[in-house]
């Protein structure tokens, strides 16, 4: 991969996605060793810059960097310090003065990583920008599916929930369709609006409209705190029409994969018995997350050169 940055899966060529997934598959082996570390990125500095709270994505990236022997620096920016007046660009200028090789950024505004990527020489990895993209999450989802299916070509993936405001959904939609899969989406009208025609998806309504056709069902977390006024009547209404419970799972294909980017709301978008059931690959997703993020850092930071130096 010759790119400097990972900004999103929109427009990313198939060969590049394949390269990332194959590299990630080989990175998994490191995590199975007794000493879970390789010297590939020794001496390189990876900074995590998270403007929104996140535990799992951040720790996953940090662990990935550590397994490649990179130095990591967590730059915590609470919402309060941005309201104190420092702009994103000024924060980035400060970090740039520390000579980082890569910045992993999560930010509430779409395009924030793009702004940094074109303004600074370091690599920028998008760990979620507003409602736009969350590419490493989609890549780990695709790696998980690939482990079960070999290829994504011709498969059908249903994504259920708040498609409109989900960066996980957007990145998955771009990535999955590039890899030849078909994507169905379902959710309440306020979360699955007709403007979704801008994305390569088939829009349905309730989970019953998609459950029987899918090879994988990806349930999105309902983030009520993020919603505007009058978007959703109640949690029980949501569970009744859009939640995945055991009865619905029985109507799905027997080999179906149940996925969730976490953290889950048990009993709302997904039943506890489904989340913990045999079709669930939710914890595989977590394991694959580290491998995918190792692959991304390795490919973007020119891991090959680093390895030769070592």
């Amino acid at each position: 991969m010759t790119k400097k940055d990972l900004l999103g899966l929109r427009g990313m060529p198939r060969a590049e996605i394949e390269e990332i997934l194959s590299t990630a598959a080989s990175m998994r082996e490191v995590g199975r060793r007794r000493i879970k570390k390789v010297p590939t990125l020794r001496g390189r500095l990876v900074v995590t810059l998270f403007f929104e709270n996140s535990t799992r994505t951040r720790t996953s990236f940090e662990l990935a960097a550590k397994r490649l022997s990179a130095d990591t620096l967590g730059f915590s920016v609470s919402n309060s310090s941005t309201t104190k007046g420092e702009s994103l660009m000024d924060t980035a200028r400060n970090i740039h003065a520390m000579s980082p090789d890569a910045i992993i950024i999560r930010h509430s505004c779409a395009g924030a990583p793009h702004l940094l990527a074109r303004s600074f020489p370091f690599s920028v990895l998008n760990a979620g920008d507003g409602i736009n993209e969350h590419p490493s999450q989609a890549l780990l989802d695709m790696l998980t599916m690939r482990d079960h299916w070999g290829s994504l070509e011709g498969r059908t993936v249903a994504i259920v929930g708040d498609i409109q405001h989900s960066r996980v959904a957007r990145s998955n939609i771009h990535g999955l369709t590039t890899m030849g899969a078909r994507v169905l989406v379902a959710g309440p009208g306020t979360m699955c609006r007709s403007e979704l025609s801008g994305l390569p998806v088939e829009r349905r309504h309730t989970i019953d409209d998609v459950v029987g056709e899918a090879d994988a069902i990806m349930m999105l977390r309902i983030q009520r705190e993020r919603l505007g006024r009058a978007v959703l009547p109640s949690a029980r209404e949501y569970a009744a029409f859009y939640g995945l419970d055991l009865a619905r799972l029985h109507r799905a294909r027997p080999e179906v994969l149940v996925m969730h980017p976490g953290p889950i709301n048990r009993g709302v978008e997904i039943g506890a018995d489904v989340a913990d059931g045999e079709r669930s690959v939710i914890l595989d997703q977590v394991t694959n997350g580290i491998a995918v993020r190792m692959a991304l850092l390795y490919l973007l930071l020119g891991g090959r050169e680093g390895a030769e130096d070592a």
Partner: protein
Amino acid sequence: MRDFPVFATRSRRPAPLGLVVNDEVASRLLWVPAFVDLCCDPGYPGFPVRETPESLAASALAGGFSDLVMSPRVDPVVDTPEHLSRVGGALNGVRFHPAAALTVGLRGDELTETGLLRRAGAVVLSDGGCPIADTLVLRNALEYAREFGVPVVIRPADPALDAVGVVHDSPLATRLGLRGNHAASEEIGVARAIALCRATGATVHLSHLGTARAVQLLTAARAEGLWISGSTPARNLILDERALDDGRYDARLRVHPPLRSREDRHALIEAVRAGTIWVTADHQPRAPEEKDHEFERAVPGSAGLRSAFSATLSAVGDLACTVAALSSGPASLFGLATTALALVDPEGAFEVRAERSLPPDALQGHPLRGVVHAVAVG
């Protein structure tokens, strides 16, 4: 190359402009009525980082404008006769005509002293781009303004829908992961303003039009004989939402209301050609540091005075239409008499360049046609 023998307006003695052009350009130069902007929102006083009277006059003259109607949306809001002189006046031949706030503080609840403001020189009343939420207040404001014969400038929008989104709500917005501002907001605002214009008999001008349906509604209202007119920012004739499709999230393109669809843009061009709507520069300069942000966080607005003529001419393709939309139309709203002239080359290539000393313009980098060479003020 030769000096172009230029003469100022009738009222003045001939004077050389100091303009040096080659014969080919000289053969294309034409004097046209200088332009009048209805919605100049330079942000001073109150925001010196954006513009000063000197830089504003320079931008106006560079763009062929001799008269600017100044938005009341400054700090503090121009809502009393005492405040009018802070924005009115003239500099280097450019006349700044004050618009007064339609409601106190532009808050949308109390009426301003329309009669006193009129007497002190306010040429129009304006909502300053802040839609009035309470329809009863808007109706009363129009009733009251009618009796003093003051035109009212309204940016049509539904206040609740207007507050949502940073780009046109569309499949493209969904693809970009940016929250959309729906065209229905403007349509509701236009329909409401037309109904109240009909109900009150006030003279209403709808600024910042951006949608095809707004044009349809306005066309029907004018055919009905209502005293209502409309205008669109010149950039809306060149740019539409597809300018954002490069995925750069370029904050220069962050304007409010947002750039709409291609179909909307075509409808606006047709409406200018037909004389249904006029054109404004929608000059809302922003300091570079106000744009050096994430798209959603950047302050909306763009400079417009230097590019308005070229953008309009390039889109409309006809000089007479362009001049009517930028000069005689807007001047007629408040009975402005002007003898100022602009010297233009309708064929010359023009491009707004990014300059650190000038506020960013959304049209930067777009090849346009039509160059303003000079303004002779009366």
